[in-house]
């Protein structure tokens, strides 16, 4: 062995590289989080009845776990809607066409939109409801004066709509007080997109509830129309609010409410949402004869009865076309509005019957309405209870260990030379350690499919090491460095070819959206690459050191 450090590095660079990667992986795996005792494992094996304790992320590694190994729910569903792309319109026509869509199709304002896409200077029209057919959509656009046929209508919504939806859902998940949620879109083969929401620690029912609410909040004024009848006017929409505070409870009144502030920044016409709301309230009589005049809401029974003898002035809180609450104008707020000072400090309380209503209302106001509803007729759900996830964690570790023992057993039986077999096992395992370190580094959540990938990596890894060992040891002893190198490079051709086929075979899975399987493919491909580039050359180096006469 040479004492010259440069020669040393030259000779053992393969092994040095492996050790460097291993050290790096171990740091990534263990150091930043500190080393904590993992008692969840012992708990599970000992007493399963009480395994409901949620161990969370507090393992002794920095690994993050996915839904299958940590508990939680994933819901995938596409957005409901249709799009017509590249409309031939001018800048000022955008709003007109939107209004034509509302009236022609008889749909809510939130169910249609005409967008201008700055990046590529084009207009699109979208409809977000199942109740409109492609033909109806096309004919509505035709009546707006556009040259559009049914064939121009595509299923699905624009990227901008999906981005807005993802933002809204993210806000909702965060608002619900759960961390670690993840919302993203996934492309399908036929050009569609699914919106995927993953939330640890939520049941499928809860998550579906969160996602199925459109969350379109309106304040509607229910007041006499002057001809002896009552009428509805929408006075505030959810984009009219500038600030939403967390839900609160008024001890004195015994009411749950959400404190809100209406936007009072003036538009080009000198009016703001707040001043328009104020003048509407004054005009409809809410701030004069209407103060305290609302009896449609029976709070004790939680019912609404709009068949009243007296004239009613009610503020209705409407979420997704459902009336949540109805209450009268208070004298304090009414007075401020009448004098016109309210718009300078435009806050008020949105009162709702229960704490849960307050929570939902606050979340819906904060996150805004979901631009398009999700289509639950095309959904896919996956969910695991934390207790079962812990069980899976233990079991997959056990399965991994058993597979490694099996592989080691076969290799030892075959070679019976620990000098060949032992480094083989160690090298294959170090491949897994490097991969785990990498997963911890990029915070890739480990799921069951990744575990399958790790086991596959050990399998392919050992296969290739067998090829190296057999090749290097063929035709008797390895006498010199040159003989070793020539045999090693021969073996490497086969390994490279085999690795290339595995990567090609699994790459469709890494790109296509096949749910769980992407993790499996990514880990296996990464493992093969790490194997070919780092660990297998290192095994060659170790083997050379052990077999050549030095």
């Amino acid at each position, binding site marked *: 062995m040479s004492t010259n450090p440069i020669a040393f590095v030259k000779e053992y660079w393969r092994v040095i590289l492996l050790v460097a990667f291993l050290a790096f992986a171990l740091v990534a795996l263990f150091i930043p989080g500190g080393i904590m005792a993992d008692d969840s494992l012992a708990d599970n094996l000992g007493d399963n009845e009480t395994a409901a304790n949620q161990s969370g992320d507090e393992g002794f590694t920095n690994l993050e776990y996915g839904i299958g190994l940590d508990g939680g729910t994933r819901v995938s569903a596409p957005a409901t809607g249709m799009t017509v792309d590249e409309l031939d319109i001018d800048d000022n026509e955008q709003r007109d066409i939107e209004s034509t869509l509302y009236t022609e199709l008889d749909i809510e304002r939130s169910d249609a939109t005409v967008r201008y896409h700055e990046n590529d200077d084009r207009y699109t029209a979208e409809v977000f409801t199942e109740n409109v057919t492609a033909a109806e959509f096309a004919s509505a656009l035709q009546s707006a004066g556009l040259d559009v046929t049914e064939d121009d209508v595509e299923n699905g919504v624009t990227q901008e709509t999906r981005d807005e939806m993802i933002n809204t859902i993210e806000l909702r998940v965060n608002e619900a007080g759960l961390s670690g949620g993840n919302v993203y879109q996934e492309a399908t083969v036929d050009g569609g997109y699914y919106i995927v929401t993953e939330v640890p620690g939520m049941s499928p029912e809860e998550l579906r509830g969160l996602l199925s609410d459109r969350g379109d909040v309106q304040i509607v004024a229910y007041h006499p129309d002057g001809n002896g009848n009552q009428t509805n006017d929408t006075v505030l929409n959810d984009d009219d609010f500038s600030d939403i505070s967390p839900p609160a409870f008024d001890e004195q009144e015994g009411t749950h409410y959400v404190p809100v502030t209406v936007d009072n920044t003036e538009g080009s016409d000198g009016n703001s949402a707040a001043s328009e709301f104020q003048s509407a309230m004054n005009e409809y009589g809410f701030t004069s004869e209407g103060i305290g005049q609302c009896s449609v809401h029976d709070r004790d029974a939680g019912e609404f009865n709009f068949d009243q003898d007296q004239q009613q002035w009610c503020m209705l809180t409407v979420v997704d076309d459902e009336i949540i609450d109805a209450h009268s104008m208070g004298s304090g707020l009414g007075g401020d509005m009448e004098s016109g000072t309210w718009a300078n400090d435009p806050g008020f309380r949105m009162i709702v019957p229960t704490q849960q209503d307050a929570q939902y209302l606050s979340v819906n106001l904060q996150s805004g309405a979901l631009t398009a509803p999700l289509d639950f007729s095309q959904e896919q759900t996956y969910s695991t209870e934390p207790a079962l996830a812990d069980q899976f964690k233990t079991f997959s570790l056990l399965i991994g260990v*058993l597979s490694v023992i099996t592989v080691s057993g076969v290799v030892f039986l075959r070679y019976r030379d620990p000098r060949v077999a032992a480094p083989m096992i160690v090298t294959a395992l170090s491949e897994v350690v490097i991969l785990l370190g990498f997963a911890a580094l990029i915070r890739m959540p480990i799921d069951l499919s990744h575990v399958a990938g790790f086991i596959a990596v050990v399998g392919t890894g050992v296969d290739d090491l067998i090829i190296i060992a057999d090749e290097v040891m063929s035709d008797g002893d390895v006498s010199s460095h040159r003989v070793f190198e020539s045999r090693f490079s021969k073996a490497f051709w086969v390994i490279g070819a085999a690795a290339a086929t595995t990567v090609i075979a699994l790459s469709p899975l890494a790109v296509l959206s096949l749910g769980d399987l992407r993790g499996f493919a990514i880990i296996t491909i990464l493992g093969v690459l790490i194997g070919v580039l780092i660990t297998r050359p290192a095994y060659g180096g170790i083997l050379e050191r052990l077999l050549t006469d030095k």
Partner: protein
Amino acid sequence: MGYFDVPDIQYPRYTNRQLAAVPLGLLAVALLVLSGSFLLTGAPVPLGMDFTGGAELTIQTTSSEAQIQTAFSVEPDSIQRIQAPGVDNQYTVQFAGIEDDEAIQTLSEQAAAELEQDGNAEIVQQESTASASFAAQTQQTALLGIAVAFVGMSALTFLLFRTFVPSIAIVLSAFSDLVIPLAFMSIAGISLSLGTVAALLMLIGYSVDSDILLNNHVLRRSGDFYESTSRAMTTGVTMTVTSMAAMLVMGIVASLFGIELLASIGTILFVGLAADLMNTYLLNLSLLRWYKFEGVRS
């Protein structure tokens, strides 16, 4: 060598036709099974909930299996008890081919309402549902994935060896490596799931390794055909047997533990690798021998 020796087949004693007859016969039988199943049921292999829509629940309950069978508005396709250390009263219940989306979503509620709770544990421990249209999408994607993987692997093989017969020999045996496990699934009643698709793709990558090794030894090295073959076999059989052992252990343990994904990957890879042993050393080898001794001259 050791306790585990690679058997020496007396290749010179058999003609190419004799060697190829066994794997080709088995391939024909497998294709017959698949087409028979296709004619009878409309699908060559039973399709699981991932591809037809439906649900899979893992439930923890003290109710009996018979009670579980009748607890739902739709009758379960299978109920499997999980037999893992320290785990009692856990079952995996599968429902495949449900068209009605509403019905799929209410299954877990029905389980919670109809079954007996086991202590404090939640009844529905795991829920996986896919609506019929989502599943149809998945099916399309999976088929595309397998096709792309196979074509990619074939193209790479031709690129590596640049001669027709040895390359087509690899492609043919890889094809058979896929078809035989599929036929096995059809007979054993294992339904196609995302896990088994992953296994089939893995098989495409895994199984050609030993074929590449064999072709490489025979075509790219000097020396006698039988000597090269025997050397390639020593290495190749060790490789395949090691992987098979690992997959067998994973398949058995994971199916006892109720981890469906790992169980199906393990089982399918085990069967596929066994098929690969036969295809590599009978089918691929006979084609290679024909090419080496007769094909090259013409």
